[in-house]
């Protein structure tokens, strides 16, 4: 397993979101830490993407890719904040 980070999720998330989501700011449901999704800790390669908070290590986001659908589990994030003024 290699240690990666949220930057490596950019492609999978761009399949779901209309804008780059790695620049979006998450707020961790566990500890309240807030930063760009790119800073999430991730290990790979794996069939699913699990992004953990760099502060408390709680799971913030999961992305699982099936042949015909994508499962996005965001229960570890209180919110995602997207900048829309010329990203």
């Amino acid at each position: 397993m290699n240690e990666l980070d949220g930057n490596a999720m950019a492609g999978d998330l761009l399949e779901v979101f209309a804008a780059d989501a790695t620049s979006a700011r998450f707020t961790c449901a566990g500890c309240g830490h807030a930063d760009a999704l790119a800073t999430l800790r991730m290990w790979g390669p794996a069939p699913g993407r699990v992004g953990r908070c760099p502060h408390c290590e709680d799971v913030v986001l999961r992305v699982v890719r099936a042949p015909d659908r994508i499962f996005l589990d965001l229960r570890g994030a209180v919110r995602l904040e997207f900048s829309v003024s010329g990203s």
Partner: protein
Amino acid sequence: MARAAVSGRLTWRLATVTGSRWETPSVRTLVLDVPDWPGHLPGQHIDLRLTAPDGYRAQRSYSIASAWAGTGPIELTVQRLDDGEVSPYLTDTVEVGDQLELRGPVGGWFVWRETEPAPVLLVAGGSGVVPLMAMIRARGAVRGRQPFRLIYSVRTPADVCYAEELRRRVRDDAGLDVHLLYTRKAPEDSPATPKRIDVATLNTHGWPPDFGASCFVCGPTGFVEAAADILVALGHEPRRIRTERFGGTS
């Protein structure tokens, strides 16, 4: 640099390998002709997938090493990881004329924009230099006035990627400084002793914190954490420090 899209719908494209060169004995650059490439920003990456005859697929992200000039091929620089599933194929098996499936560009956070006036500090561990090289090349292509400094940590002198090009760029461009740091073996004619990235290195060869520099740190996790922690301790604003970790070794 031409305008490049950061977002947009993603499609898998079939790229053709049109050239390759070895940067070091374990690092190879692939030149790829990608049909309808929309352009990219320095720091962005692509997802590449390989499909085995039985349908098994492996997907990886690779940083784009080249700057986009509005047309032409793109370049990826790949380090062979000996236990890797994809990288040994790209370094040792792929030949000119082969096709590879990729999508992108993706990523909008670990990205340098030529419109940002701030000085830039690039901190690379091993093949973490790849996206940072794209930034140096992009700045060169638009003759950017932002002063750039690269601190580049390698194991030995033989592990320096883009060595010739970096020498040439530093010689021709007063706005670019490069400091090499050796972790195992320094050049024989150098007074430097091998060491890991430390406070003295970032303090001496980086920018003073009150310059408000944008810092980009890329390398293996241990390296990235050490460098980012030191930058914060030296007084750099955490929000101006962007990091990218990858699974390589350094």
